[in-house]
């Protein structure tokens, strides 16, 4: 035992020696790749959907070319991004779809994260069918008629029921409860990632096959695969309070930006710029389409948008 305690003591003290004595603040650690050539660095978190990539691409381009920062991006899902933001591992989260629990913990209680205003884009989640299908069966766009058409949406995966395709596990979804509470003859099939879901939707659309899917706007795919929303029972404030008993549509959410509190205070021009950053759904889709459909790199896509929208972004510069 004595040997082991000495070993542990030795390990701890050598760790302390190596990194400078005393307490090590877990919130004060940047990425080892940051500031590599002595530049000021901003670290932005990117979420896995293309809209979030577009926000970051444009912010990154302007920070680098107009304000002289070096920008690192880290891809993380929203919930882990809140955590990373609170620890100062990333400086900003540019598109949040509403996480009341995290807001309570980090913004109100711990005060490690500061709100940075609206992104200017309003997000909406819903159930969608391709427009070619809605034209064939106009009444398919009301949830009350969905059971009548369940056969159309059958796949090997959903068995004898219709398939309602859901996407990435990082999304906000009540679909399982909705199917149950609205007594729909459907099976929720999780595609497991947005990439898989988009790939499948494109395949269906290519063959003009019927499909019913969880999807959200703003989203570039609408330009490639036109889709029509299925009406669910109207959303009322608080109708989605109990996740088990939800029987209403999803709300329209003005998307929010958040900054690390320290960064918001001491981030200088970068922080001021990110607080002012505010654009429209149309702007975001323009960039998204360039990235996801034209396969441009986010940087090239951002450059293209920046070059043609000078009046929009001039207002964001501090």
């Amino acid at each position, binding site marked *: 035992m004595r040997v082991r305690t000495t070993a542990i003591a030795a390990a701890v003290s050598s760790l302390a020696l190596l990194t400078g004595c005393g*307490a090590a603040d*877990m919130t004060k650690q940047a990425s080892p790749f940051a500031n590599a050539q002595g530049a000021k660095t901003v670290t932005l978190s990117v979420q896995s959907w293309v809209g979030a990539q577009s926000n970051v691409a444009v912010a990154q381009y302007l920070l680098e070319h107009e304000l002289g920062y070096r920008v690192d991006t880290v891809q993380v899902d929203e919930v882990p991004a809140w955590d990373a933001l609170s620890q100062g591992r990333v400086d900003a989260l540019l598109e949040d779809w509403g996480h009341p629990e995290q807001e309570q913990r980090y913004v109100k209680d711990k005060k490690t994260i500061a709100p940075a205003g609206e992104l200017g884009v309003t997000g909406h989640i819903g159930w969608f069918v391709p427009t070619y299908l809605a034209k064939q069966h106009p009444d398919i766009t009301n949830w009350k008629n969905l059971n009548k058409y369940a056969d159309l949406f059958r796949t090997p995966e959903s068995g004898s029921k219709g398939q309602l395709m859901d996407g990435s596990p990082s999304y906000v979804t009540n679909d399982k409860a909705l199917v149950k509470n609205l007594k729909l003859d459907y099976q929720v099939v999780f595609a497991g990632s947005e990439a*898989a879901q988009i790939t499948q939707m494109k395949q269906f659309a290519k063959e003009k096959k019927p499909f019913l899917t969880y999807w959200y706007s703003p989203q570039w795919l609408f330009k490639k695969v036109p889709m029509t929303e299925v009406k669910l029972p109207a959303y009322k404030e608080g109708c989605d309070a109990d996740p088990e008993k939800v029987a209403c549509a999803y709300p329209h959410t003005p998307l929010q930006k958040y900054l690390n509190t320290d960064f918001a205070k001491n981030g200088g021009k970068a922080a001021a710029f990110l607080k002012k950053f505010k654009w429209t759904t149309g702007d975001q889709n323009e960039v998204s389409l360039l990235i996801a459909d034209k*396969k441009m790199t986010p940087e090239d896509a951002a450059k293209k948008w920046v070059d043609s929208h000078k009046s929009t972004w001039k207002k964001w510069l501090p």
Partner: protein
Amino acid sequence: MATITASPPRLGLPGLLKNRAVQKLLLLALAAVILVPLANARWASGAWPSGLTVDLSEPLAKTSDWIIDNRDSHPLFLYFFGHVSNVVVIAVRAVYLTLLAIGWAGVTALGALVAWRVAGVRLALGTAAAFLACGLLGMWVPTMQTLALMVAAVLASVVVGMLLGLASGLSDRMDRVLRPVLDTMQVLPAFAYLLPVVLVFGIGVPAAVLATVVYAAPPMARLTSLGLRGADKEVLEAVESLGSTARQRLLTARIPLARKELLLGLNQTIMMALSMAVIAAVIGAGGLGDRVYQALASVDVGAALAAGIPIVLLAVVLDRVTAAAGERLGADPEPRSGLGWLYVLAGVVAVAVAGRLVGRLDWPDPWVVGIAEPVNRAVDWMTAHLYSGVPVIGGTADWAGHFTTWVLDPMRDGLQGLPWWSVLLIVAALAWVIGTWRTALTAVLAMAAIGVLGVWKPSLDTLSQVLAAVAVTLVVGFAVGIAAARSDRLERALRPVLDVFQTMPQFVYLIPVVALFGVGRAPAVAAAIVYALPAVVRITTQGLRQVDPAAMEASGSLGATSWQQLKQVQLPLARPALLLAVNQGLVLVLAVVVIGGLVGGGALGYDVVFGLAQGDLATGLVAGAAIVCLGLMLDRVTQPTERRAKKGA
């Protein structure tokens, strides 16, 4: 379950009953007759009874809250984890800055010269070509980031692995304690422990490096222990007779004698660490993995491939160089000359200084070749023409549909329809017939643990997918392996293909798999097959080739046809290798269950991804634990008696 601990009785019954397997099964049947009605009366049959589950979500949620609330203030974090994290950051940063300072020419020269010293001219050229290719693909900076991460992670894994290996190599008791720990570390899907690591260390490099160490240290530990145990007794006795102390014996005899195993351990550790590079990107490790992951988000296979190829190249180069170094160790104990290494150093310094003087440290932008677009076009063409409507054989989507309806559905429904106690009985019977009562007990307990954790149904869903994937993998793998064992040319042609499939990050083929097979369990099975097939083919080929040539000649001279030779001589003699192939196939398929969750496989894989994405420790960890239990059960069920028997009870 108590019955399984009873030892087989020595009954003097004649004939069939003397057969041990039959005895075991009879005993099991007897136990079932007594226990099943009891269990049935207490908990009605069907899925796992809810009375026998333990809900862990409450304590796990509390743990996660505690960590978040205390992370910035508790001494444990301030004085321990904080420093660990700092050391990692400093180490990675030091390597990264060094690599950047040497410049691309210097790094290429360094790689090539080191390869030349330890492995010869051919590999030196290959190494240089590999580095240049990383630059040409426009991936120089991410490659350096990944390399810096790898250096830190591999060093840490080697240190941890050697310490664990020393402990278990020198003490039998430690060996017994550590064995299940190492087993678990290897079977636990990396995704499941990313979350706890992130909770403690936050997103970023420290968490990524530590997660990699958990994954990559076990092979080093196992091989270190193996090397120490395998040291030549006579040499050790000779050293002992010279009156050396235990520590001297360890340093001067046992460790040098185990050199070869240590090097093999290093090789394995590097491979495992590289395969974590992409998974670690999910928690913000940066580098090549991050590029693959970001490309996936915009459904861009070409860009993902451009970042995936450098990973494959790094893996192949590092594998060949360390393997060649290992072979040299055994072959010629060449006189150590410091001179050669001096040349290496001088060469690198010269190139680096030259690069700095010319001002060409960064990879020049015009030298980047874009491969993304042609690749995407090829993928589009493939999926457009194969997905459906192919005359006669039908499209890939049809196959996937049939596979789901005719194979996966009946298997899942069948497994889920079985009463829970009968699943335990089947597991017990299989494991006991193939192994000993100990292996059977472990298998049954692992299966029961799944029920207790409350994930019985999704686990059986996952099990059905795993079994289907393994079945297909074995059929294809054995066929290809047999063909490769019979033709040198085919084996040579296959080698690079197998290399690529074994090291290509799974994220790269996610989208093609969905584009071909649609969303669901079929693409999940396909991804698993792609991943597990190379290992099965390799082990099969090697096993068949190692069959004693004398036996082959003898049967040939007796006039056996080639088919008879295969069936009656080669396959039976290669049985241990084939069993190993089965075992490895299972382990590898299980390792990509989580990847399957990303393409619609659902069940446990999806739960693990969900846990990570939503910061939900309860869902993620429980599903991860269930995958470990499945792995443990399947491993025990396929572990033949010989292996266990040798270790002895």
